[in-house]
């Protein structure tokens, strides 16, 4: 099973620390600094939206240059192979791919951004002069043996890594609880009388 990062929205306070940790961690590893998860907030919910590293990932299926592969239980984009066609971003049902490239704007007023598109334009549609945009997505911090930076950074513990043992354990818990509930549901109408049914 592929590993992925899951969010518990009730505990999310929308602070963006996960975004900052993701950005810094990748920048330090020489990868794109665009955060690979996104905060979504509505009237009812705040949650970080993460890549699900789908078993039958549509992004991987649709990539024309084979830049998206599966390795070590994660679905990864090779940022060098990617040509920036954005098909993967179009097809991802979670919007978990964030096309981005390194800007050519300098610092301290020496050069500045010359936008050709309003910043509100979706990253799937905009194009900036001189910026090589490529698919940027969660790589489970494959470059770091310590694992995903966002999970460690989250201060309310809303993010967690779901891998096969984790998912199996969570499922087991639910199954046992369901069995107990089943027992209660059938008590009294079971054809077997047990000591405590009297």
């Amino acid at each position, binding site marked *: *099973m592929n590993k*992925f990062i*899951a969010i518990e929205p009730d505990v999310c306070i929308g602070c963006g620390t996960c975004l900052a940790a993701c950005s810094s961690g990748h920048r330090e590893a020489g990868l794109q600094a665009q955060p690979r998860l996104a905060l979504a907030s509505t009237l009812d919910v705040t949650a970080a939206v993460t890549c*699900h590293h*789908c*078993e*039958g*990932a*549509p992004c*991987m*299926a649709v990539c024309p240059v084979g830049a998206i592969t*599966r390795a070590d239980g994660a679905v990864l984009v090779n940022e060098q192979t990617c040509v920036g066609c954005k098909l993967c971003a179009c097809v991802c*049902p*979670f919007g978990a791919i964030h096309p981005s490239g390194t800007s050519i704007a300098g610092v301290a007023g020496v050069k500045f951004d010359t936008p050709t598109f309003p910043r509100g334009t979706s990253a799937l549609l905009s194009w900036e002069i001189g910026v090589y945009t490529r698919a940027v997505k969660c790589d489970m911090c494959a470059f770091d043996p310590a694992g995903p930076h966002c999970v460690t950074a989250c201060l309310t513990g809303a993010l967690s890594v*779901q891998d096969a043992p984790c*998912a199996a354990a*969570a*499922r*087991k*818990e*639910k*199954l*046992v609880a*369901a*069995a*107990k509930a*089943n*027992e209660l*549901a*059938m008590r*009294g*109408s*079971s*054809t*077997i*009388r*047990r000591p405590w049914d009297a």
Partner: protein
Amino acid sequence: MGSKFVIADPGLCIGCQTCLAGCLLKHSVPGDVAVPRLNLVTTLTISAPIVCHHCADAPCVASCPQNALYFDGDRVAIAQERCIGCRSCVMACPYGACDVVSENRVTKIGNLSVGDPGRAMLVKCDLCYDRPGGPACVAACPTGGLQVVDEEELQERSRKKRLAAAAASAAISSVQLNTALA
């Protein structure tokens, strides 16, 4: 309302796994995935297979971004070709009754093996909608411990309980009741 589901009587369950075998056999056909949709749980005090409740307001249907799960009459149905294996339904189901498995098929062009990105398959009870005689697990269970609960069955159970409760309420009647009628 109006959905059906299979439920186990823990009193009758002997943990023999025959229901799992029956389910697996029924799903061992081309295009399907040969994995049982029931999940046998055994603890110190209970044995019971847990299976999809075909909820009227199913969280799995709500969580699927691809509409691979949808309502079809009395059950929550699966459109297998739409599943991308994101496992949102696995996380959403409060019973743990939904699962996703992936097949890694290898395509060969002559002798050249060309890997497949992976095909995800949803594993969830479909109420054996296409099986004459209904759910295979119910038929297979040697102790008769599995039954299909539908609207009628639920009404019947409630009716029985209400009758029993009404009879018991005789104890609190403020006026002496005529017991000669019983």
